[in-house]
Every structure is written in C-alpha cells, then in structure tokens.
C-alpha cells in the first residue's frame, strides 16, 4: 500500500545494524558496536510506533473494521504459479500490537544490556545477535504469508540458538543452545509439513487468502483428506506443533528452562516477552482457519495450553533457580494464552482471542520486567540460586519495587496489568469449557504462590549474601522503571476495541463473577507464600517432605528431560544412527569391496590354467577347438 512501504524498514534497520556490527566486528570498538545496535533498534521503535499508532488511530479502520493492509510486498522466490514466497509486511491489529511490544521490549533490553554486559568479551557480538533477533522477530510478525513466517521463524530460532550459546565455552550453555534449537527444529518440521499440506490443498501461502472466511482455503478443502484425516485439521495441528515448539508447550517445552543459560537480557527479550509467544501469534494469525474449518484442532490447542499452564506452574513452585522459576512461569502464562485462543470463538464469541492477545501484551511487560529484575539481582549477587539470596530489599530498592510490581501484575492483583487480561481469559474459559476454567483458576493461585515464593525468598528472608550487594547502574534500572510503569498501565489499553478476531469492536466489561474469586485465590497464594518464605522457617521442607513423591517429581520436572535423553541418546544415536553407520560400512560398502575381492579370488583360482607346460597349452587349444565345434554344431 502506498505510503506505508517504510514499514519494511522496521525489521531491516536492525538487520543492517547486524550486518555492520558482524562484518566490521574486528574494527569496531565494542562501544561503537553497542551504539549502532541501540541506535538501530531505537530507530525501528520510532518507526514502529508511528506505523502502529497510525494503523490503530488513523488509517487502519474502514467502516469501523480493522483491515489487513499489505504495506509492502515483493516476490522473493517462485515455486509454482500460485505458490510464491513473497517478502512483505502485513499490518493488522495483532501485527501492529506485536510491533509495539517487540520494539519496546527490545529497545529496553538493548539499553539494559549496555550495563549488564559491560566488560564482557563478546560485547559487540552480543549486540549483533540481538539485532539479528530483532530483525527476525519483526520480520516474523510482519509476515504476509505462511512461508515468510516460516523463514523468519527459523531465523528467530537461530538467533535464539546463538544467544543461548553466547557463553560458548560453558558446556551447559552449549548443550542448552543445542537442545533449544533441535527441539524447536523438530517442532518446525511439523510446521513445515503443515505448510506443505495446507498449501498443497489451498494452493496458496498467503494469509489474506487463507484467513478469508469465504476464501478457497476455508471453504473448499474441508472435505479433502490426507492419509485418512481431514486435511485442514491435520495441517493446522502440524502447524500448531511448530507453534508449540517455539512457545514451549508441553511436551516440547524442555528447551526453555535450559535456555536460561543465555545472558539474562536475552532471556527477558527472547524467552519471555517475544519469541516464545510466536506460537500464540501463529495460532492467532491463522485463527479464522482454526475457528471455521478445524474447531477440533482448536480444542487440542486449548487442552495443550491448559495442561501446560498447570504443569509448568506446579514445577515452578519447586525450582531453586530464579531464572528457571521465571521460565516455568513463562510457560505457564503462554499456556494461558493458548488456552484462551483454544476456547475462543470467532466474531461475537471472540473474547478468548482478544483476551489472549491482551495477555500476550501485558505479559510482555511484566515478564520482561521480572527477567530484567532477575538480571539486576544476578548482576549484584552472582548466583541464580534463590536459596543463596535473601534480604535484598535493603540493598536494591529500585529492583525490589519494580519486581514487586511485576509480581503483583502476574499474580493478577488489580489494578496491575495482569489482572485485566487474566480476568478476560478466565471469563472466556468459563463460557466455553468448565474444566479448562477450573485449571486456569487453579493456575492463577499457583502463580501467585510461586511468584511470591520467589519474591520473599529473594527480597525478604534472611540475608545469606556476604558483603553488601549494591543497586545496578541507572542504565539498567531505568528500563526497569519504564517496564514497571508499563505493567501498571498496560491493563487499561482498550483491547476489545483494537484487537479482535474479526477486526470490529467487541463488547466486553469486567467480569466480577470471575475476577473476584481469581483475585481471592491470588491473595491466598500470596499469603501462603508469605507465611512460608518471608522468614526462614522449616515449613517449606516439612511441606515438601509430606508431599513426598509428587514434590520430587515436580522438582525433577516430572522426568521429561530424562525421557528425552533416553530417546535421543539411546534410541536414536545407539539404536538407529550407529547401526546405520555400521550397516553402511560393513554391509553395503563391504559388498562393493567383496566384488573386488571375489575378482581377485577368481583370478588367483584360475592361475593354474597357465601352467607353463607346453603340452597343457596344446590340450587347452585342442579341447577349445573341439568344444567350439560341438557348440556350434549343437546350436545349429
């Protein structure tokens, strides 16, 4: 669309920053590299705000309905006449919203890292990777078609891989990065096959065509089957596998806790606020197809989301590592978003959709805040283990306050942001599925509990740190403050007007029948946590020993990692790869060698024919001649 082509610059500016820093790595001083990165992302942010605000408040609506606008498009690779990968930028409520989220969090993380990463040897490398990530993530949300999305999806995965493995001489970091990439890659396989399947039947990758309720995608392929299953459901489920991988849904979640090996700002940006919600974004992007053509797939989404929310919340209650607790909490919250999408309907019944997006929006603020706060803490105390912290509120007041705000927000206490979005989610769930509502409700309590467990362990309790940790520099605290403000006000954004499943306004109000109990259970959680962890006591250990097996299982993350290890190391490596390698060497190759050996053997065997004795030669001669006579006479 004319006048909006500059939208494409939003992702491209960080990309150029990446190229410049990457190529001139040697010659640029780290400071300059950092400045380039920060300038780049700030420029993107300004553009993104301009575009997003413009979209929401000036040109986005036609007759009160938000349109999907193709701001820019160029064909990149042509497969067939209709299947074309185009590079472009789509503008619609969710992409505009995501632009805001990503650029905001990114710029804050970029700035925060200036302080956090100070003096690290890979400073400029860090900014290069961060810029690459921002490029990929922005490209992902702006994708106009499935394949473009897949491309950036992969790029995001790689940036995540590079950043998790940032401390590449640490074995744990290397293993974590590898794990993250391979697990998500496995999930992406589902995504890719889903794309292939869907595009084969619809003949297009284009989101606009796919999601058009009257378009060929939804209407014409309903009856088609592939290997006995409805094509649309199957392909959407496969695509959802991709989303589940990236968004760490059970059972593809195992990479996320390990990914905390990366620098904390990375965890904040990638593994809390932006990349991990890509799966939610993907489902939201294809939501009309889900809603119209494959409601059963949507149901799967809901159950997976609900289960993950619960599962991760339980695990989070037991973890000793501050970042891992946050990681499980992220999983749990994303499960919430998935759940919301899963229970949603389209149009009038689209509360879940809006709620999900709303939660995505608010979650980005408070979860980024939590991570950056955790980073600030780790920066000060140099450990991740919450049992080694305590009493930090005196030393780090700003961090303390902002962290508290974030905890309140995630616990769903009004008027913090989390309250509003969580309320809508639970309301949507209540309407559609009681079981899922129950789970969501329980998770709300658990969330409050484990967040405040964390909070009290770190900031109250007794100080176990020797010496006096000090507050982080202002380049780190200012982003915290900004995010804290965001966590306070984000809840008041009128999402029902801006982001809805069909683009038009969704009538909604505060659901007190849901809000009151959920706030109550949140408060209960907080109180329980306060009782147990505010001061040093033996309550927690008593409780854990009384829970016995369940606690142990939760502490060990329900042994999912072990199952994976078994499958990969034992089954794939030892039972498949090794035998194949052996088979190749000792059967197939040996067969080729054997033909050579056989030839040699035959050669050795017939050497007596040439005996050196003249009269034997004559015998061969004569019998040869006679043989041919017989042969020819017989054949005649």
């Amino acid at each position, binding site marked *: 669309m004319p006048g909006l082509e500059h939208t494409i610059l939003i992702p491209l500016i960080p990309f150029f920053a990446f190229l410049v820093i990457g190529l001139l790595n040697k010659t640029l001083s780290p400071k300059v590299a950092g400045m380039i990165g920060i300038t780049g992302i700030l420029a993107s942010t300004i553009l993104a705000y301009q575009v997003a605000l413009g979209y929401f408040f000036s040109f986005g609506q036609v007759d009160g309905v938000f349109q999907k606008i193709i701001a820019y498009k160029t064909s990149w690779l042509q497969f067939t006449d209709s299947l074309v990968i185009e590079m472009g930028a789509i503008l619609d409520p969710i992409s505009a919203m995501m632009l805001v989220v990503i650029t905001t969090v990114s710029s804050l993380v970029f700035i925060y890292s200036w302080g956090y990463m100070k003096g690290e040897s890979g400073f400029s490398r860090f900014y290069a990777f961060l810029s690459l990530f921002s490029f990929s993530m922005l490209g992902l949300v702006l994708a106009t078609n499935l394949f473009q999305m897949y491309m950036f999806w992969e790029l995001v995965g790689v940036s995540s891989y590079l950043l998790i493995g940032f401390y590449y001489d640490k074995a744990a970091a290397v293993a974590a990065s590898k794990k993250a990439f391979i697990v998500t890659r496995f999930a992406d396989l589902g995504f890719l096959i889903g794309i292939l399947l869907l595009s084969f039947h619809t003949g297009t990758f284009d989101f606009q065509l796919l999601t058009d309720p009257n378009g060929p995608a939804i209407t014409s392929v309903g009856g088609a089957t592939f290997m006995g299953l409805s094509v649309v459901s199957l392909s959407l489920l496969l695509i959802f596998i991709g989303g589940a991988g990236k968004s760490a849904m059970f059972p593809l979640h195992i990479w996320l806790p390990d990914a905390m090996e990366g620098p904390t700002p990375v965890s904040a940006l990638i593994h809390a606020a932006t990349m991990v919600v890509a799966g939610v974004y993907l489902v939201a992007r294809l939501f009309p197809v889900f809603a119209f053509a494959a409601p059963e797939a949507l149901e799967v989404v809901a159950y997976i989301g609900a289960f993950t929310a619960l599962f991760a919340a339980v695990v989070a209650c037991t973890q000793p590592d501050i970042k891992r607790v946050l990681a499980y909490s992220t999983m749990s919250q994303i499960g919430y978003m998935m759940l919301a999408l899963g229970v949603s309907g389209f149009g009038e019944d689209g509360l879940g959709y809006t709620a999900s997006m709303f939660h995505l929006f608010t979650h980005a603020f408070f979860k980024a805040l939590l991570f950056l706060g955790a980073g600030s803490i780790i920066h000060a105390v140099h450990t991740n283990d919450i049992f080694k912290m305590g009493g930090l509120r005196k030393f780090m007041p700003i961090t303390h306050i902002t962290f508290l705000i974030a905890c309140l927000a995630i616990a769903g206490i009004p008027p913090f942001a989390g309250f509003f979005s969580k309320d809508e989610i639970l309301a949507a769930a209540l309407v559609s599925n009681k079981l899922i509502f129950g789970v969501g409700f329980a998770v709300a309590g658990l969330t409050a509990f484990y967040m405040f467990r964390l909070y009290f362990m770190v900031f109250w309790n007794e100080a176990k740190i020797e010496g006096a940790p000090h507050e982080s520099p202002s380049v780190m605290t200012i982003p915290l403050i900004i995010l804290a403000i965001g966590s306070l006000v984000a809840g008041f954004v009128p999402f029902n007007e801006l982001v809805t499943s069909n683009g038009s306004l969704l009538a909604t109000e505060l659901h007190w029948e849901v809000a009151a109990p959920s706030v109550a259970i949140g408060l209960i959680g907080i109180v329980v946590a306060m009782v147990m962890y505010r001061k040093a006591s033996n309550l927690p250990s008593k409780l854990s020993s009384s829970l016995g097996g369940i606690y142990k299982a939760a502490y060990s993350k329900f042994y999912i990692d072990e199952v994976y290890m078994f499958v990969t190391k034992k089954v794939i490596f030892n039972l498949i790869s090794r035998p194949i390698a052996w088979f190749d060497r000792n059967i197939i190759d040996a067969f080729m060698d054997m033909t050579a050996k056989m030839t040699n053997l035959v050669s050795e065997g017939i050497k007596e024919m040439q005996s*050196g*004795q003249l*009269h034997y030669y004559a015998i061969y001669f004569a019998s040869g001649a006679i043989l041919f006579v017989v042969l020819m006479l017989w054949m005649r």
Partner: protein
Amino acid sequence: MIEGVPLSHILVVSSIMFFVGVYGFVTRKNLLTMLISTELILNAVNINFVAFNRYLYPDKMEGHFFSLFIIAIAAAEAAVAIAIFISLYRNLKSIDVEDVDSLKH
C-alpha cells in the same frame, strides 16, 4: 584317383593321422617328438588336400600345390625349431618339455 578306394577311406586315414599327431603333441615329453607330431598333423593335412583335389576337383591343381608348400614350410619350421632346441639345450641341458616351465602363471 585310386580305383576302389573311396574318398572316405582316405579321409579316415588322414583324420586318424591328425589325431595321432595331436595326441602325440600332447603326451610326448621330448621336444623333438613333439615336433615330429606336428609333422604328422601336417602330413594328415597334405593327404587331405591331395585327396580332395584328386577326388572332388580334379580339373584344378590347387590342393596339390598347397601340399607342396606345406612340405616346404614344414621343413623351414623344423629348421628354426631345432635351432632353438639347441639353444635351449645349451642353457638347460635338457629338451624335456616339462623342464621348460620357468615362465608360468
């Protein structure tokens, strides 16, 4: 043409001679006897040629000429062969064919 002796009889004789020659070549260990065996083969051929010419194609003389040439060449061949036998005998002190097997396999 010899009265009363059909061609087949002559051919039988020549064939027997031929195979005796072959047999001799194969079984004899003495190089000279082997050479003599080849002469036997050649003589069988000569009989053939002459007989065919005389019995079947009496108007031309090709067979006769051929046998004459064969006799001449057999002599040449024998000359060269015996010369080589002598050379071999100088080296090996033997003209037994079974001793002549340093080149093999």
